[in-house]
């Protein structure tokens, strides 16, 4: 049984409608809201599974359903749904992870009076995310994309009364919006160049040969192919959403939301949207590869940004002390990996890593949430410690997540997906640098994850929260266990010997032979990272919260710089922030002084004219007029004596005058 493509809309609509209903039910019934949200998402999951089954039955066939949104001119703005392995697979992933996170939230937010709103926002988020994944139109995708942004804004700012949370929410929205503007411009350009925003439309879609050829064939500013320019603009949006350098600054701050939100945003769905977008429009990004004349290929930029982000995130994560911040930067780093993979052409590897990452990162965040929940909201790893015994389940699941993330060989999913990425980077013909950067990041990842594990679970408790910790309830641990299982199992979907996932996503996928040497190198690096971490943090656990970090003792300045996140936020505040403020001030001043000034000048001019004319009148003209007036008055006095007031007299004068004039006319011949 497969889902008919015409009914695709049900998948995002169920959670969206649930969100609307939850918003409408009274706040007194929080349980009702949560139940509704869970039920709706479960329904979506079932439908998504049906859709996936349909898509997998014939991976090469794309099921599309197009409908008219509204008429415009002689044409119309059309939207559509698309069921293909990429979208449906991610939809299943989002629904599954979402369901687990929803369940976890039941326990995490049991005592929060605003839990109803939380589930409303979560449902909205899930609906928008599912719509994004299944859209066959970039416009529909953008619509859902922005709604995802709205939901994340609401969720990050869920505890809006904390100034930090309120600020973080705003920062997230505005930073991603910078990227979104690029995306919007790209959409507009694409619509202008091709006349449609449908991805696949029976040969007329933007991702189909005809349009791609036209886009790659035309050139624009700076010698770029139009497809390159549009691709880069679309990548702006992806970079914003997926926290790529330099738009990554919102992601660590987004930790201000409740932990399930962090899991939702950082692990599975939201940040994945950017990678998904890159994978979705991959044909467009790759359209310029055949052109030798263009100054830069779009994919080169993607790979470069990805490599930088991977290294940056891993390096900064080394020096963070907040458990969620470490995980946040690890997410940044992993997203960099995915971009790197997509940029080097292995977008299937990117999606593979996206899937495995979604599981183990959600696992890590939820485990961290469990830790935070158990220790009464203690997030500073310097005050944790010794939780191995108190939280055995959490400790186990966290360890599994950590191993998956670090890429511990063979058993854990992260190993396989990372291996695929390294393989692709190794084979990239443009430059070997990203490959080496990625290798460095592999070692760093293993190092900082070992550090985190050791600091939180090894040694002795170093704070009140850690001392009184108790294992979280089953409603929270069961999702953890399930996710841990998935973190192990998922990896076997894409091993080099059986690359099922890759070949399903991309029917043209050809596994490249010979990865054993590379695998050995990466295993060695992971081992080195873990050993270094263990030797520094696990062997000699921290004894007090105040004790200095071992790394700070060795390279204090580097540690300080990394702890300060290399000063990105400060840099932005000093440049863009200042610029904004200055421009705003300048504009206001322009209004106040220049334009208002112009008006006032006009008024003044009028006043001056009046003044000058008054002075002239009084001094120049009046004296003359006064003299004339005196003369006139005298004359008038004399003349007034003739004014007898006798009406007859006047008529007499009139008659006499008439006679005189007539005589003058007749006799004088005046004509």
């Amino acid at each position, binding site marked *: 049984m497969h889902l008919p493509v015409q009914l695709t809309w049900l998948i995002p609509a169920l959670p969206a409608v649930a969100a609307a209903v939850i*918003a409408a039910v009274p706040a007194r019934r929080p349980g009702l809201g949560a139940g509704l949200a869970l039920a709706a998402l479960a329904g979506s999951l079932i439908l998504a599974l049906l859709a996936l089954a349909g898509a997998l039955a014939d991976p090469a066939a794309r099921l599309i359903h197009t409908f*008219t*949104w*509204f*008429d*415009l*001119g*002689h*044409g119309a703005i059309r939207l559509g749904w698309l069921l293909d392995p990429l979208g449906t697979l991610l939809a299943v992933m989002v629904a599954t992870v979402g369901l687990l996170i929803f369940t976890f939230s039941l326990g995490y937010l049991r005592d929060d009076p605003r839990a109803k709103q939380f589930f409303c926002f979560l449902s909205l988020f899930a609906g928008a995310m599912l719509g994004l994944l299944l859209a066959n139109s970039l*416009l529909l995708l*953008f*619509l*859902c994309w*922005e*709604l995802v942004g*709205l939901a994340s804004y609401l969720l990050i*700012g869920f505890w*809006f*009364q904390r*100034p930090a*949370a*309120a*600020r973080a*929410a*705003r920062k997230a*929205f*505005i930073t991603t*919006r*910078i990227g979104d*503007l690029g995306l*919007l*411009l790209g959409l*507009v*350009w694409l*619509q*202008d160049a091709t*006349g449609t925003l449908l991805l696949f439309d029976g040969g007329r879609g933007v991702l189909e040969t005809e349009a791609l050829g036209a886009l790659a064939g035309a050139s624009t500013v700076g010698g770029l192919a139009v497809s390159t320019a549009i691709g880069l603009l679309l990548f702006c949006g992806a970079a914003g959403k997926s926290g790529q350098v330099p738009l990554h600054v919102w992601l660590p701050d987004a930790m201000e939301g409740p932990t399930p939100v962090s899991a939702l945003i950082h692990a599975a769905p939201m940040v994945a949207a950017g990678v998904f977008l890159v994978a979705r429009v991959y044909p467009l990004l790759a359209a310029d590869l055949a052109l030798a004349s263009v100054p830069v290929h779009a994919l080169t930029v993607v790979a470069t940004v990805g490599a930088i982000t991977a290294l940056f995130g891993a390096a900064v994560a080394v020096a963070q002390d907040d458990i969620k911040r470490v995980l946040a930067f690890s997410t940044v780093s992993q997203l960099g990996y995915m971009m790197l993979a997509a940029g080097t052409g292995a977008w299937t590897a990117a999606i593979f890593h996206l899937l495995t990452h979604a599981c183990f990162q959600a696992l890590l965040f939820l485990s961290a949430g469990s830790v935070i929940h158990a220790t009464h909201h203690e997030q500073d790893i310097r005050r944790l410690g010794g939780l191995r015994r108190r939280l055995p389940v959490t400790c186990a699941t966290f360890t599994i997540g950590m191993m998956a993330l670090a890429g511990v060989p063979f058993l854990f999913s992260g190993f396989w997906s990372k291996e695929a990425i390294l393989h692709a980077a190794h084979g990239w013909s443009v430059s070997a640098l990203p490959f080496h950067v990625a290798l460095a990041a592999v070692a760093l990842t293993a190092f900082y994850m070992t550090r985190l594990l050791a600091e939180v679970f090894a040694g002795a408790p170093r704070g009140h929260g850690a001392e009184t910790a108790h294992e979280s309830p089953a409603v929270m641990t069961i999702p953890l266990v399930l996710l841990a299982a998935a973190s192990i199992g998922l990896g076997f979907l894409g091993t080099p010997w059986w690359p099922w996932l890759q070949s399903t996503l991309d029917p043209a996928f050809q596994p490249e032979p010979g990865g054993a040497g590379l695998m050995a190198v990466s295993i060695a690096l992971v081992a080195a990272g873990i050993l270094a971490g263990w030797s520094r943090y696990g062997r000699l656990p921290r004894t007090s919260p105040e004790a200095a970090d071992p790394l700070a003792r060795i390279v204090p300045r580097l540690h300080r710089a990394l702890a300060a996140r290399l000063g990105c936020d400060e840099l932005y505040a000093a440049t863009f922030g200042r610029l*904004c403020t200055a*421009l*705003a*001030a*300048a*504009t*206001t001043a*322009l*209004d106040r002084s*220049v*334009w*208002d000034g112009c*008006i006032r000048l006009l008024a003044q001019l009028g006043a001056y004219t009046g003044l000058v004319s008054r002075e002239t009148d009084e001094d120049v003209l009046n004296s003359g007029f006064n003299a004339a007036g005196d003369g006139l008055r005298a004359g008038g006095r004399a003349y007034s004596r003739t004014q007898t007031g006798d009406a007859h007299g006047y008529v007499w004068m009139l008659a006499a005058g008439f006679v005189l004039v007539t005589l003058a006319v007749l006799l004088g011949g005046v004509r």
Partner: protein
Amino acid sequence: MNSWPLLSLLVLAPWSGAVLLGLRPGLGDRASRWLGLAFSLSTAALGAVLLTDFDPTRIGLQFVERHAWIRSLKVHYHLGLDGLSLVLVLLTAAVAPAAQLAGWGRAGPTRVPNLLLLFLQGAALGVFVAQDFVLWFTCWELSLVPAYFLIRLWGGPGATRAAYQFVVYTIGGSAFLLAGFAALFAVTGTFDFAQLAQLGRDGALAAQLGPWGVRVVFAGVLLGLAVKVPLWPFHTWLPPAYAAAPTGTVMLLTGVLSKMGMYGFLRLLWPLFPAQLQAAAPALLALAVAGIVLGAWAALRQEDLRRMLAYSSINHLGYCLAALFAVAAAAGGERPAAEAATAALAGLVLQLFNHGVTAAALFLCAGILEARAGGRSGLGDFGGLRATAPAFAAFAGVAFFASLGLPGLSGFVGEFLVFRGLFGLHPAAAVLALPGLLATAQFLLTAWRRVFHGPVQGAAADFAPLTAAEKTALALLTGLMVLPGVAPGLLTSLTNPLVTAWAGHLTR
């Protein structure tokens, strides 16, 4: 087709309400409120009738009423309605009752303000349906009178100066408009829009006025309309007026009256002076883009909610102006731009409606805040309002995000279409206008954070719950922000043939 003089009724119904209120000086507050609401709803009722009888596939005027009025001057009582007018009439139908409701919670007299609001409503409707200049201009000027008194008598601090500035500025603008049309009448002998437009298209107008004459007349008409919209930098009357006007008035000012200027651009300036507008369009486009960007920057700086919203109005109407000027500039150009022009114009009309509703809702929210904070509307006077007034925060949130252009709400479709058209016609302008979108998000979210988020402080602590009237008005406007966002076809289908025809003129 209905044989009633629907358009006359449309204009006269609010006015008769105003007369009724005027004739009953002893009327109590309660009766005045209900009467005002009832008569302002007449537009909605008649608008519904118009909507059902309207044939969206026809391009020309419908429901035409034409009678000789002043024969010696060839002035006609000529009313007519096309898609554009209908959209604006529906906008008025939505905003005017909300504006009436906004005054329900206010202390002080109700009869005279409601009377003036009804008068204003009728005048605005007259502007939207009049097809003869004399009639049109009469309504245009008549709208100033009630607005002046409303601001002057019931405005906040600085109202006297703001009202004075508002009236002097706009009358100053309309003086040029009137002079321009007097000159037009002198050479053409007609005041009829359709005839003038025909002359304008043929180029006969330019031929009769002479090369300099036509420029002077064009500049006069342009100035009159530019002040009204307003086009940057003729906007300086707007922030003080919007900041000082009472809530209902400012809702009508921004929701309806600012659309009159845009309507004038579409109905008068563009059809009558296509060649002149085309010549001036690049410069005007630069001004419109400056309005978009600088309006948003200036809003970022404001400490007062109302002034911030006033600047955001300048920003949002900048999109409409930019779309129009880009289309005008592209006329007869090299690029076959019919598709882009259609998008830009459709976006323009959508944006007119959406901005009207959204801005009215935002000012209503500001008014509600003010009413509970003793007249203060500074961003620093509140904090954490979402905790104490969640329902109000939800309504306000929809308005904020609609104004910001969030998909799913009304603002997005219009802005997307405008940008799509702008990019197709003038890519550089589209790119330059983008920072405006960013700054809009920035100032709206900053304001949102300061007023609604953070710890509860200031006037937010004891925030009285929304009254039924406020809830009704907010719910009405919220519905009109969601509906066109989800189904923009409801509005675009009304204007689509018209817009297609406009764009078709370009490529001819």
